[in-house]
Structures are given as structure tokens and as C-alpha cells.
């Protein structure tokens, strides 16, 4: 985004504190554009926003980017740290690089799109959001994910989908191992259609929607009696 629309703002981390940047973003009217320059790994950029604005972060950023947001569309042209888009309610966070741990943790809604790889526990505790990863995901991804969808364009690490509830994970590459109570299910036509929609949304061009694995809960740990088999 080389130009900003009328009323758009440029905010530089070289000059402003995190608090000043977030306060400035929160003041913008719906439809406004903002660019955050020189982020230098700054944490907590663009958190807790409720306005329908577009934000471009021009470089690598730190923890919780876009966390607790309910509205904006955020793009990071770089890498980010832990828990990008945590507890997202609506809107989107797109990262054109790799992300560290816990991407999309507890996201209730909205979409988190990661063009690179995601480290461990991507989609942990997911509660209805959508997490789309073009590359690989680390171990324990989808841990205790309750609702929503994950798509992994590359390979998944060990214990994928451990203790899954009702979320569904699609994996295009290899799965190192499944976690407790996760199982691979048959792909249906509606799954293929859903994956196609997600690929189009993310702009991924390396995933064949007919050739992904569907991982869901075996629902054997849903009640305490399952402890008889010491699965926990």
C-alpha cells in the first residue's frame, strides 16, 4: 500500500509509543487506512480495535498483533511473534511471513492468514475463528480447539488436534502424528468446497482441495468416564 486514502495516517514506531499508536488507530473512522512503519518487532500493535479500518504493518512485529480485535483488516509485511490475532472476534490478520507460537489462540471469529510457517500450538483453543497457514505448523497445533476451521498448506507437527472439540483441521501435507482423541475422517464434497473457499480467501495457489486430510475429534474424551482409559 504505497498510498493511503483520504484521512489515512502513517504512524512510525520510531516516533510513537505503542499506546500512542493504538490510541491513534482507535480514533480512525470506518473505512480509513493506516500504515505502521518501522515496527521493529514492537508488541501489541493494533490490539483491541473495533473500527472497520485497514492497517498495514510495514515490517516484522512482536506478540499479540491484532489481538482482541473486532473489526479491522490488518496486514503484516513481515514476520510476527507469539499469538497473532489472539481472541480475534471479527476482521482479519494477514501475515506475509512466518509466525511464532499460538497463532490465532482462542479466536472467536474472523480470519488469520499466514503465508509462511506457524510454530507450535497454532489454533490452540480456537473458538470459531479461521486460521489459514500456507506453510507448516508446529506440534500441538489445534490443541483443545473448540470450533472453527484450520487449514494447513504444508506439514503438521506432532500431536495435531490434541483434545479437539468441534473444530476441523484440513492438512495438505504430512501429519507427524495425531494428538489424543483426534482422528482423520473421510473428505466429503462439502469439505472440498469449504477448502476451495478457504484457499481462494487466502490466495494460496499450492493446495489441491481434493487432496487434503480432514482431522476432527473422535469425541472419546468428551466425558469424564473416558479417564478409565487414562487418555488424559
Amino acid at each position, binding site marked *: 500500500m504505497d498510498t493511503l486514502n483520504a484521512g489515512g495516517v502513517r504512524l512510525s514506531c520510531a516516533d510513537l509509543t*505503542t499506546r500512542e499508536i493504538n490510541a491513534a488507530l482507535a480514533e480512525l473512522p470506518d473505512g480509513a487506512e493506516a500504515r505502521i512503519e518501522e515496527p521493529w518487532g514492537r508488541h*501489541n500493535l493494533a490490539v483491541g480495535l473495533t473500527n472497520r479500518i485497514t492497517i498495514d504493518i510495514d515490517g516484522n512485529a512482536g*506478540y499479540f498483533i491484532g489481538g482482541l480485535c473486532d473489526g479491522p483488516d490488518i496486514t503484516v509485511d513481515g514476520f510476527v511473534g507469539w499469538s497473532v490475532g*489472539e481472541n480475534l*472476534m471479527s476482521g482479519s490478520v494477514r501475515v506475509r511471513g512466518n509466525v511464532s507460537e499460538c497463532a490465532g489462540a482462542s479466536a472467536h471469529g474472523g480470519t488469520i492468514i499466514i503465508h509462511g510457517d506457524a510454530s507450535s500450538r497454532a489454533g490452540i483453543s480456537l473458538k470459531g475463528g479461521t486460521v489459514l497457514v500456507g506453510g507448516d505448523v508446529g506440534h500441538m497445533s489445534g490443541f483443545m480447539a473448540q470450533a472453527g476451521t484450520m487449514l494447513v498448506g504444508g506439514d503438521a507437527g506432532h500431536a495435531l488436534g490434541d483434545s479437539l472439540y468441534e473444530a476441523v483441521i484440513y492438512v495438505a501435507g504430512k501429519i507427524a502424528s495425531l494428538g489424543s482423541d483426534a482422528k482423520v475422517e473421510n473428505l466429503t464434497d462439502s469439505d472440498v468446497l469449504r477448502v476451495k473457499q478457504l484457499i481462494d480467501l487466502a490466495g494460496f495457489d499450492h493446495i489441491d482441495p481434493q487432496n487434503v486430510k480432514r482431522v476432527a475429534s473422535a469425541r472419546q474424551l*468428551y466425558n*469424564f468416564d473416558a479417564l478409565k482409559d487414562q487418555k488424559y
Partner: protein
Amino acid sequence: MTETLPSSLPLAESTPAPALPADARRRSHTFPPEVVAQIQRMADEGHYEIRGWGAKRHLPTFDDLVFLTASVSRYPLEGYREKCETKTVLGTRYASKPIELDIPITIAGMSFGALSASAKAALGRAASAVGTSTTTGDGGMTEEERAASKLLVYQCLPSRYGFNPKHLRMADAIEVVIGQGAKPGGGGMLLGQKVSQRVADMRTLPPGIDQRSASRHPDWVGPDDLRIKIEELREATGWEKPVYVKLGATRVANDVKLAVAAGADVVVVDGMQGGTGATQDVFIEHAGIPTLAAVRLAAEALREIDMADQVQLIVSGGIRNGADAAKALALGATAVSMGVGPLIALGCNSRTYLQDGVEHDATADYRALGTEPGYCHHMHTGMCPVGISTQDPRLEARLDPEWGTRRVINYLKSVTMELTTLARACGKSNVHNLEPEDLVALTIEAAAMAGVPLAGTNWVPGSSDCR
């Protein structure tokens, strides 16, 4: 003339069994009847016990301390006539809108799910009436609770069930829950029988399935991450609201220092007598340290890092009355928080309940759970005989919210009166002026834990100081 009796007489069928010898019921300290019953239950069921309530074992408590009230060397304030200030301010370090309470006694976090919506609302109304705060719990904020509670603390828990930034902004303070005294490091569980459609919808899970409350936050680990997490919560709320960090009491000194370093405005330390809606009995009875020890360690930690004036300390876990509150304040707490006490005031463990203006006996319902009024710890079942810890509309109707609210108001007022009367007798015109010097211990254990002298001596076990 002496009659010789036969050595044994034939027993008629209706004759009672012969009396047991005096040592026949010799109680084993290692395997007393309740342990025998637990082992037999484990052999029957093949898994650990999950239950509600808090620790039932004997522990050193605030009862092991007594006040050295005024005499010649110090003079008291007059009974209930002279003013004794109870106002309490929490969150003065960073928050632009600290919490101002009329009394240093708050209602602890208890979830909608563990408790019925009407029980939560009754606690909120009572807290508002006496000028104090109540706290959400796992599962998020209900409309009833927000409407009822003038001051509401919104918990950020590991499960994030129902966690909504809109509710975060509606809250008066934020409490990041690291652990609970009843189950530090253990998480918790809401068993499926309490997961009604409404509870399930709030938590984004199907009704009727057990809902695990995770033991660790999903988006951060460790103290450095906690600092960033707290900053995120402040950024999302404009740095207005106090941020509490709640700890289950284990390695209290280090944990308190790390919470302060992470930016907490208020540290909440929950001792092992703290209650829970449901967790493993083995956690309740065998994890964490008693509140008595925790409060002294926490207060000492704040003093060591010179933050006692900036960071407030709330202590919870088995606080029952004004004496407990006064002792906690004397040892360094700014306020106490109570959970089980207010529930008992609402009617928990009462033999009767009031429905449609008529008092009903609930003994048979307690018996059906395998317990008695006064002994019930069956919150986990969802079959609360008095309608407090349930989601069953038939049982929930047994709690008259207005009646319950009045009882909790009375209880909180009584606790406050006990607190102030002890403070006045110690010569204090403000309950926050109570100090360790006002206390002595009745046991060596309590003296060592609380850091006050054993009564009648100047000996503080574990300390080189005598006073």
C-alpha cells in the same frame, strides 16, 4: 451367699449382639474410615474423585492467631460509636480509574455455569449494596451479573470460555487468573451435567459435555510473556482499568515478585483453603499452601521489592468472618476475597430452602447425593438441593434471589462489623492500620507461618528476630 453364674447363656433370636470390646473400633490414623471408603470408591470406579468446595483436612488457620487488643500500653477506640474507616482503593499503580470499595471484603470469582444465573445476580446485588465488587469466572460475563454488580471484575482465564473484548471494556477491573488456591497448576472442569444450552453457547461447546478449564493460558507462558499480555489488556482498555493477577498459593514470594514485575496493579493470592466448583480431590487436599502462610509471604515479597505502597494485595482462601479478615489485613493484605462464605450465606448447605414464600426441607435431596446439610461438597453434580450451584431450572427455582441477596448483605455487614470492632479494640481508626504487632500465635506452626510471636513468648520460629 454367692451365686455362681453360668459361663455362657444361650442367646434367644431377638437378643442383641454382644457388646464389642473396648478396642474393637480402634481408629487407624493411617486408614481411618473415610480413607477406607475412598480406597473402596477408587476400586469401584477406577478414577480419581472430582468434587467441589475446598480443603477439608485440618490446616493451620487464622484461628491459630489472636489479637493483642488494647489495654494500658495502647488505648482502644470506643466500640461501635467511634469511626473506623473501611474504605479501600485498589489499582493505584497504573490504572486511571482505580476501584474504590467501601469495605475491604470482595466477592471472589465464581463462574456462571458453576453457579446459577440467579445466584450470580444475587451476589452482585449484595456486593453493590455494601459497596464492594464481585468477580466473573470461567464462562464469561452474563447480562444479569453486569446489571447487578456496580463494580465487576472480569477474569481472563486460561480457558478463555466466553472471553469477549466487549465485556473486557464493560468491566471495572481485569483479573488475569494464573491459578486458584484449590487447584494451583491444575485447571478445572465443569462436568457435563451442568452444561446447559445457555452455558454451552457462552462457552462455544456442545451442551452436556465435560468442559475442561485449561491449566495454562493459550497465548503466553512465563513472566516475560505475562508482562506483554498485561500490556495488551491495558491497550485494549485504554489503560483505565486495574489489572489484578491472581495466583494459587505455592511459591508465593517468587510469584508475587514476578507478577509485580509483569505490571500487576493488584496481586490476589488464593490459599489452599480456597473453594472450587469442581476439581480433583487430590489437588484440593494436597496442592498449595495454607492462606495463613501465603499472606505473610506475599506481604513480605511486596516489602522486599519496595512495592507495598504501590501494589495492593488481596488474600483469599477460607476467609469466613471478620476475625479472618482482620488478621489478613494485619499481616499485610489490603483486602480479602470470599467465595464459599457468601455461598453459605445464600443458603449453601442449609437444611431448608425458601420457595414461593414457603420453607421446604431439602434433607432428602442431600441424602440422594450421599451427603447431609452441613457436609455437602457436591457442587460438581449440578444437583444442588438449594438451587445455587446448578443449571437445572427446577432446582434453580429453589433460590429466592431477593431473600438470598438480603442474607448476603447481612453476612457482609456482619463480617465488616466484626472486622471494625477488632480494629477499634486494637486502637485503630482505620482497618488498614492493623499490623503484625497486633497478633500473636497459639501454635508454633502458626507463629512460623505468620511470622508473629508464639503467645506468651517473644519467639518467632524461623526468624532471628524476637520482639
